[in-house]
């Protein structure tokens, strides 16, 4: 027999009764598939994918620039699509494949330490100065090519406009993307 204290009784499904599969606000176990490996983190549901990657998994390639979806420095792939890790909650990514710049060179564990063609071309074309935006630029650039929008400079400009470079390395970034276009 269940004993209930008068005054604290609440019906099922009311606002204050947590539902069975509600998680948080305290830290919960979240399983993430990052660069082909299963990782577990204990995080609050409010933690962004960017926060989980950088602060929990020490994958600091994706950068915290604006933290409000404006600059593109945090660009990673979720299920192969370029997205902003700062506006994505990590807990929503359970079951998805996350790829960061750290996983770009050898996503399948092969490659003998070679860089991804886009990374090679960024180096060859000196497509950065301070380098802060570069991981986001590279992840976005591969997406731009795969989506079929790297046809000419005008198209690259438009489809890379979500990645800001305060050093204004844009001409070199476009040159790198043009060069990598047929190798991606």
């Amino acid at each position, binding site marked *: 027999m269940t004993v209930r204290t008068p005054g604290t009784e609440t019906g099922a499904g009311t*606002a204050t009764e947590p539902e069975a*599969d*509600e998680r948080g606000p305290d830290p919960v176990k979240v399983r993430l598939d990052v660069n082909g490996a299963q990782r577990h983190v204990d995080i609050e549901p*409010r933690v962004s994918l960017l926060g989980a990657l950088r602060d929990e998994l020490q994958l600091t390639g994706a950068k915290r620039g604006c933290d409000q*979806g404006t600059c593109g420095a945090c660009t990673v792939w979720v299920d192969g699509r370029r*997205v902003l890790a700062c506006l994505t909650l990590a807990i929503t990514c359970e079951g998805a494949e996350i790829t960061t710049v750290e996983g770009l060179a050898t996503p399948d564990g092969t490659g003998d330490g070679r860089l991804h063609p886009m990374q090679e071309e960024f180096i060859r074309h000196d497509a950065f100065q301070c380098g802060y935006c570069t991981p986001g630029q590279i992840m*976005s650039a591969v997406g731009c090519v795969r989506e079929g929008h790297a046809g000419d400079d005008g198209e690259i400009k438009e489809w890379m406009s*979500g990645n800001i470079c305060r050093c204004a390395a844009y001409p070199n970034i476009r040159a790198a993307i043009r060069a990598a276009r047929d190798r991606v």
Partner: protein
Amino acid sequence: MRPISYLRAEGADGIDSALRAVTDDPGSDFLAGGTTEVDLLRQHVLGPRRLVDINRLPLAGIEELPDGGLRIGALTRMSDVASSPVVQERFPMVSRALVLGASAQLRHMASMGGNMMQKVRCGYYRDAESPCNKREPGAGCAALTGVSRTHAVLGTSEHCIATHPSDVAVPLAALDARIRTRTLDGEHTYAFDDFFLEPGDTPHREHPLTHGELITAIEVPALPMARRSLYLKVRDRESYEFALVSVAAAIEVRDGKVGGVRIALGGVGTRPWRARRAEDALVGGPATTKSFDLAARAELAAARTTPMNAFKPELARRTLVRALETLTRDGSRS
């Protein structure tokens, strides 16, 4: 960011459980693409205690309707609608408006239902500090005497002049789209015009939806002339920027006369602005630059400007005229 709880809606009764979870709890919000919700949570503009993740509900995809229209599932991402061949073929202005909005990354994330629910970009709303009648009814409006260059000139009130920010809502307004929703009571349909509320005395009410009502789809009825429609967007920089003025338009010309026309304006209204005055002025008349100009003037006569956005009616007039000139310059005089 304040702490939040998380509930993922999935499985056979996922839609019902999501509806129940949010309806029963004023502190719960739906979470779709998150591009507005997470942003504004972090900035303390929105303050739900719990997010109900609807991303795994079966509400994505584009279906062809028997009449030649389309049904766009609420969770279809902006990028998928933009690149859909059937959207590009039947409603090019919808695809174009999507491609010219946000960035590639945001378009992969943001859902179409969320696009309809996105919040205004008024800096005073989003700073979580300034007086704002949307954020805190009765607090006043800092934009009225503040920096208002990007603010609206149509449909404003003395309580709010924030511009509706969506690009794709502009062609959808021109197309008489319908918003389909669900509540625990069943399905509901809103005409596009009824879905977006002008601020009036209640700028915090942006939609007629009840708490816990979920957009399930956007229906776009067939419109043959929309196959040659366009979306013309004017902004401060070429890409990744909101519209100062935008025009979605489709026009049918027979023997030099306007047989039918659809026009909506973005960047100038407190809601996606269907330009019915301009349409009425045009139908049956000659398809000339002079009539386009008169029609634009008829629409914009009601504009109320601030010293900072007084350029907008003239910019809107020119953009509207250019859009109609572009559409009628070639091939459409059949």
